[in-house]
């Protein structure tokens, strides 16, 4: 149960949909429980769970048509008027909302690395394992994602967070 918040946050970062995120987390646990005999006692169980969830999501993306996913236009729109200096906003609810919106507006590969590294604190190597990509890809995506987030939080930015 210790991972459920992190898994849900990651699932939400992937899907941008709370209902889908709940289904993803539940399915990840179902699969993990069914395959728990495959995990060695010293395995990184937390990373393993995130890997399973990411695989469930990849399968879902293959099946689900894009229009079936509910984006959150309201949150993305929240980037349109970033307002004041991000340092002054730090700790305030608006900053949190705007940052959530900025992360949601990131392209999917960037959302993934932000959720796993910046929020969950996985190392680059762990993120690479979870996503099934080279560590160098993680590093470059993360640098680009933070650049976009920084742009979104700067005063006067258009805030879309799009590359």
């Amino acid at each position, binding site marked *: 149960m210790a991972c459920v918040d992190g898994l849900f946050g990651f699932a939400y970062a992937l899907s941008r949909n709370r209902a889908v995120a*709940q289904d993803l987390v539940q399915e990840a*646990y179902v699969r993990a429980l069914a395959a728990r005999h495959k995990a060695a006692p010293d395995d990184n169980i937390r990373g393993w769970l995130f890997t399973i969830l990411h695989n469930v999501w990849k399968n879902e993306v293959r099946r689900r048509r894009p229009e079936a996913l509910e984006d959150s236009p309201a949150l993305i729109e929240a980037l349109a008027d970033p307002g004041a200096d991000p*340092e002054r906003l730090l700790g305030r609810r608006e*900053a949190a909302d705007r940052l959530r919106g900025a992360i949601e507006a990131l392209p999917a590969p960037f959302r993934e690395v932000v959720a796993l590294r910046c929020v969950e604190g996985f190392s680059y190597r762990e993120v690479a394992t979870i996503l099934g990509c080279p560590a160098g890809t993680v590093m470059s995506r993360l640098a680009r994602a933070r650049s976009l987030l920084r742009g979104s939080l700067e005063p006067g930015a258009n805030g879309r967070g799009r590359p």
Partner: protein
Amino acid sequence: MSDCPARPLVSAYVDGELIGDERAAFEAHVAACEPCRVALEAERTVVATVRGVKPLPDAPAELRARVEGLLVRRPAARRTAWPAVLVAGVLLGALGVMVGSRYRSRPLAPELRAASSFASAAADVHLRYARGQLPLEVRSDQPRELSRWFAGRVPFQLTLPDYPVGPGEQKFYRLEGGRLVAFGGDYAAYIAYRMDDQPVSLLVTSADRIRPEGGEIVRSGALAFHLESVSGLKVISWTDNGLTYALASDVAVSGARTCLVCHGSPGERERLRAFPGEPGI
């Protein structure tokens, strides 16, 4: 700033991913490179901002309960009085399952044989729908239209039945719509009905994904109906013709009446009416 060859290392440095000589070389470079110093400070600000606010939501209590349910091994099923649901199971078997399928059955995936997980999923989606937390992706009271919507979206063929009503007669239920829900690494079909102003939910997936297990089993012919109480709901699940079904309803709804969503033809209703203990059909 972005032209500096060391710029791509700023994120890695802030994240503590540079070690040894690489880290020392980067620090020496930053000491002499103003653009990289600015980039480093900006990077630290973004990292601190992300850490300072919680940018992603926590799991809702509902999900925690669902996960806890998965993690805690359920005790052996107690025998309970299931008069109405028993009626539903027996009648479903006697009447045959009317939802058509031409799905070609493949060997069951053993890793997905979690006991009662499909009934739990049906109860979950039912509760979420009843609470207004599960928006329908297609709204229609026309079974044919709904069947067309599911075609190609789920990996099986689902044909929802429809029954004509006589002049001045009203249907006992109303089809509200449907949506996809994730189950077993694929999509299941969720169909929402309303009966006596109460929601009734039908969840359908391929029998390759799951087969009902657990609960009280009522056999009728070749069919086995699994009767369970999940989260205060009645859930009947069964497998037939390559598909697995779970019918979830509130305890306030007669179990046999829920059968009407698929067995509403006049002849079938007569058989349901004749069953003792179900006078309201």
